[in-house]
């Protein structure tokens, strides 16, 4: 019998371990892709992935079913990824980043056409290792994981306006890197 995500979460919260397999199955590919692209230089993705799901299992009682599950899970994945970067002394985004310090005008969520999104995704892929970490993660969440501005804001715990600003700046940085490498085609 097909179960919905919400029903599966409820069953897990009621103590059904097997129901958790459904959630792992639903999100495994997405979280793996996110971690692989975010932490491109590591071979420990599987270990981090397991930690993400084990942590999600342990903390699932704190999840409020009236909210969306994916930002909550991506939040755990983000924290695990940041912990990994810190452990390996790789520079992360500071707690008091200038972007989150000052208010920004609300940047409207853009409805990029599919072909344009594909082109941007390819461009991001080409220069992934050169993109600043604070832009890399947000571009991945928006273009690869298809999270909305609000969901990204919930995942990264930052103002929605900052999400819009960072996506625009990230796109600009991708464009600049492509230009430097002589690979630029109009985004």
């Amino acid at each position, binding site marked *: 019998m097909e179960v919905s995500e919400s029903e599966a979460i409820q069953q897990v919260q009621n103590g059904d371990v097997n129901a958790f397999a459904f959630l792992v199955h639903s999100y495994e590919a997405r979280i793996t892709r996110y971690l692989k692209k975010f932490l491109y230089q590591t071979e420990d993705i599987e270990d981090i992935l397991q930690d993400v799901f084990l942590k999600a*299992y342990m903390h699932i009682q704190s999840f409020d079913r009236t909210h969306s599950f994916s930002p909550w899970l991506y939040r755990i994945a983000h924290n695990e990824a940041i912990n990994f970067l810190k452990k390996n002394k790789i520079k992360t985004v500071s707690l008091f980043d200038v972007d989150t310090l000052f208010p920004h005008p609300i940047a409207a969520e853009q409805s990029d056409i599919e072909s344009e999104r594909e082109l941007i995704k390819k461009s991001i892929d080409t220069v992934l290792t050169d993109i600043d970490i604070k832009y890399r993660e947000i571009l991945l969440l928006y273009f690869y994981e298809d999270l909305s501005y609000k969901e990204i804001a919930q995942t990264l715990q930052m103002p929605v306006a900052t999400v819009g600003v960072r996506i625009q700046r990230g796109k600009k940085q991708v464009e600049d890197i492509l230009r430097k490498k002589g690979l630029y085609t109009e985004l």
Partner: protein
Amino acid sequence: MTQTKQTIEEKILNQIREHNIKQKPKWQFVLHTFFLSTITLVALLLTLYLVAFISLISDEHELINMFGLGPQFTLVFLKAIPWMLIGLLVVIFIILQILIRYFSFAYTRSVLVTLAATFLVIVCSNLILVTLDPRHNIARFGERSNIPVLREMHSTFRNEKQRGAIRGVIADISNTTYTVETIKGSTTVTFLITPSTRILSQENLKLGDVVLVVASQAEGFLQASVVRNEISRNTKDAKTKTPLPREIRPRPVDGNI
């Protein structure tokens, strides 16, 4: 591909079963939230109390009236500001800010916006407090309570008469001292008058005159550096008299009070 997926699912489920990994019970999260909410509330109340207390100290030390004394008293004014309390307030304010941002209701706003909002809430609450409580009963809570830290804080900051200024009515005048009955505290303070004391008055100071005295502690006594005549109680009489030179220097001190 399917094989890999199943392997990871199985691995996770096996780990949960083999290592007997348990879900953290809901009450832990509820307790955690309750604990943080309580700390936030306490920090908020403490911030309000400190703002009220700083307001009381500023009032008792006549900080606002010291503005009118001129730029040469800037240093005295700066010394009179309760910097330690303000520092403590800033620390608690930062803790409060972090706690507020911890809760999801603040994550969608930038740091400066939540900072400004928190500050505004505290200032507005304090203005309401001052309006509803002009006698500073809330700020005097520490004086009445048996909470050790608060009592010490009160005795330390409120007894520092050498800091700031005192406004009161002259109750006694001798060759070397003025005794002033404070208006706000209803206490009596005796000041040593020396040749360096500046007396800013249109006429001779007399009993009953309201004065603002800036003093500092010197060899166990409060030495007045400036005495300014505020409003003479007998204004009608004052108008009829010929104004005297602005500064009247009393005789030098040749003994203790």
